[in-house]
């Protein structure tokens, strides 16, 4: 049930964002899968830009398609950053799947969205984008759980040869994540000096 429900929740929202020309990129468990780390995920996380489209129009279209606010209001604001939190009950599902739309307002989020990577249509059944592996690593370091550290270590192991460490270093330092990165690097390559 869960995989089909998550995919249905993603596909419907993705199509709406696409129609409204809202740039978006997968950044949760499905992004991890694309960068080689397989694990379960129960929800949909997207990084989106609403710079050119009024958020009310997007919310109205999503509401008309059956997406409803999880809380009192769909937009959760944390001072100058915000995200949209919705629930959707796909057909044949008995649980509402959560979808979080993180608004790309910080310099890091904007750059992450600009570097998104296309997925072929045959992967999910429709054309989609994921955040780059470097940006996914920074997002995981920001999340900061043990599970995220394990994710980062695996991403480093799998993608070491193709990572842009110069780019990664910039955002790791910007967010003061040097220690967290070094710990994950040590998990991935014990005894090997971190490149940052």
């Amino acid at each position, binding site marked *: 049930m*869960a*995989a089909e429900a998550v995919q249905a929740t993603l596909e419907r929202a993705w199509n709406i964002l696409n129609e409204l020309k809202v740039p978006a990129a997968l950044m949760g468990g499905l992004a991890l899968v694309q960068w080689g*780390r397989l694990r*379960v*995920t129960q929800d949909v996380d997207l990084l989106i830009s609403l710079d050119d489209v009024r958020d009310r129009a997007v919310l109205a279209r999503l509401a008309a398609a059956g997406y409803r606010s999880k809380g009192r209001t769909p937009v959760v604001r944390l001072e*100058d950053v915000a995200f949209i939190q919705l629930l959707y009950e796909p057909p044949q599902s008995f649980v509402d799947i*959560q979808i979080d739309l993180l608004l790309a307002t910080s310099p890091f989020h904007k750059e992450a969205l600009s570097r998104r990577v296309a997925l072929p249509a045959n992967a999910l059944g429709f054309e989609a984008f994921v955040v780059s592996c470097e940006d996914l690593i920074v997002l995981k370091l920001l*999340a900061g759980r043990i599970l995220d550290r394990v994710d980062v270590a695996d991403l480093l192991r799998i993608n070491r040869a193709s990572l842009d460490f110069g780019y990664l270093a910039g955002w790791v330092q910007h967010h*003061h994540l040097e220690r967290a990165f070094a710990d994950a690097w040590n998990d991935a390559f014990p005894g090997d000096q971190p490149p940052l």
Partner: protein
Amino acid sequence: MPPDPKLLSGTTPAQRIAMWFDLMRTADKLLLAGMRHRLGPDGDIQEEYRRWYAEQMCEHDKVVERIMSRSRSSQESAHGG
């Protein structure tokens, strides 16, 4: 040493998604079997699943808030805030 099953290097995006579907279906079966065992044959498994999912999302909400607030605080410190 056997290959780590989490490592999908050398596979196509479509193959990775197919493997993700397999993993999700298997994990769901195990979860539902555990719930059925705990609840017994007459327990409301759908309600139990919804309760479990809500708990998962509670934890997830904290992660999303942390990602967003840490991005914001880094932005502030980068600008002397």
